[in-house]
């Protein structure tokens, strides 16, 4: 099956600064993917490129095989997008927003949208500017989902929501995923919320894709190694060392393993997803790592340099 989203050498420059450089990514369809990275890492740029709001400086980005910025008529009906701060027309009522969705989208499911709004208890006659932040986010999401997209892109959807609103938002999202099997890519700079909801991870840092793969593969491949203080060159030649720290007596490594660890002087521990992400965000690299299911290596890891 063709990937939902695919980028090749994707780069985007603003004036002199490179927001994204040589990004390679292949997101399989049907995944709920988390795009993680610090603020200003290029997550919004990436999503805007995917939805055709921006054009790449070099390289390509393709959604279901189409280029979003040059072939908008073909691909826009299949992409749902909720931008950062979930923009709505503040003077429009909920009813107006639904009409907007219907007039501007051929596949818009008005009945479904109304049913969802009713279930969420959002009054259709109130102006969007008067709704709470959580309700606005829900309206934006309902609008994007009622379009019946095959790919849904969400830019920091949970950032301005309180915990209850966050849970409600994710519940609506998961219900849609169950019903339609759509692919989701949502960006966040907080990883905590996303573990239960996402099954694919993309780490974007320093304008590069540092890591991309199924969360289960990522968790399985990364280990923390603790051992007596030493230079880990021998280990580093076989496995990829993500993070190193030394104390006087001890060396701790966070490693992306390429096979089992045979050196018994190391104590091997599991690593939490949060720690893995933090390690990559602190890393200074120009390359990236990608896990691809079905690849020949035992853990399905592929080093992309």
């Amino acid at each position, binding site marked *: 099956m063709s990937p939902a989203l695919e980028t090749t050498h994707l780069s985007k420059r603003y004036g002199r600064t490179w927001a994204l450089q040589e990004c390679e990514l292949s997101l399989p369809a049907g995944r709920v993917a988390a795009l993680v990275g610090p603020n200003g890492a290029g997550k919004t740029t990436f999503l*805007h490129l995917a*939805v*055709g*709001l*921006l054009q790449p400086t070099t390289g390509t980005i393709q959604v279901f095989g189409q280029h979003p910025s040059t072939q*908008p*008529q073909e691909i*826009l*009906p299949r*992409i749902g*997008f909720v*931008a950062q*701060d979930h*923009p*709505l*027309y*503040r*003077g*429009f009522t909920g009813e*107006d927003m639904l*009409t*907007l*969705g219907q*007039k*501007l*989208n*051929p*596949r818009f499911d008005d009945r479904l949208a109304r049913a969802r709004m009713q279930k969420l208890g959002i009054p259709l006659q109130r102006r969007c500017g008067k709704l709470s932040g959580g309700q606005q986010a829900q309206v*934006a999401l309902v609008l994007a989902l009622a*379009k019946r997209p095959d790919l849904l892109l969400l830019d920091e959807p949970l950032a301005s929501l309180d915990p209850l609103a966050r849970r409600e938002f994710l519940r609506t999202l998961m219900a849609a995923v169950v019903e339609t099997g759509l692919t989701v890519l949502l960006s966040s700079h907080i990883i905590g919320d996303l573990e239960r909801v996402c099954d694919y991870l993309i780490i974007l840092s320093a304008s590069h894709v540092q890591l991309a793969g199924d969360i289960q593969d990522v968790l399985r491949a990364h280990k923390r190694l603790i051992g007596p203080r030493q230079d880990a060159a021998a280990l580093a030649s076989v496995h990829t060392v993500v993070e190193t720290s030394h104390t006087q007596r001890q060396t701790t490594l966070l490693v992306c393993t390429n096979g089992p660890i045979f050196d018994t002087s190391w104590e091997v521990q599991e690593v939490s997803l949060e720690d893995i992400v933090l390690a990559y965000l602190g890393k200074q690299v120009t390359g990236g790592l990608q896990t691809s299911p079905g690849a020949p290596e035992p853990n399905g890891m592929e080093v992309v340099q």
Partner: protein
Amino acid sequence: MIWLAWRQHRAESFIMLGVLVLLAVFLTMTGLNMAHTFQQLGLSACLANGHRDCSELEDAFQNQVRALSSAIIWLNLCPVLLGLLVGAPLIAREVEQGTHRLAWTQSVTRLRWLVVKLSLVLLTGFLASGVLMALLIWWYGPLNQVQARFAPIAFDFQGPVLIGTTLLALTLGIAAGALVRRTVLAMALTLVLFLAIRVPVELWLRPHYQPPIVATWALSASGPQVDSADDWIISNGWMDAQGNQTTNLSCSSTQNLQQCIQGLGYRANFLIYQPADRFWTFQWIETGIYLAFSALALILAVWLVRRRLT
């Protein structure tokens, strides 16, 4: 898309309609008043009878309607305000408030979004200014008998030039909004650009669309047959032997005028004017200039939205 464009500009449209109605009422009332005064003074009867000299009655009429005929200049604000309040925010507000990230990611292309909005706004501007133009042509009826409609202020209102300036202001506003992407800044830029085109065109280009007729005649002779109520007198005055021209005389009223003139060295009268039959030609030329700038502004706006905006 048409629904969206209408819904977004719904409030604006009603306000504009309201203002147009108010203006229509104002013009109707004052126009009828002026026509009545025109009749009352016997001026219409006088002018109908071609042989009599009506200048006294004309002066009386002009005195009576002076306030009105000079206040009408304020209507030149209409195109500007439209450009500032409707044109500038069209794209600027959308980008400033971030709603372009919603509007351009539905299933409608940016170009279609823009074309529909532009069409709606420009069509409305066209119709509104057309209505206003028709009203003003009627309103100027009596005044046109005593002053040239070819002259500066009247010219701006009594033909397609009014529609041209309206479309110019709108398109400049839209392009400015696409360029700077902030509403207030776009408004300022629109004003600057509009004046930068409008003022030079009216003051310096308009007298020369076709070469003006220059007449000179000796002080004792009689000049060309020119009607100040029809032809556009651009300038007139006195000329000396070297060809230097002046429009002012530093003569006191007590002196004998002819002696004073000759004493200052002037030998002839001169007159620069445009004949009345060129009125419509000039209207269309000037409208063409404004429409050309409008087209450029539109092309810029479309290019910016399609290629450069994020």
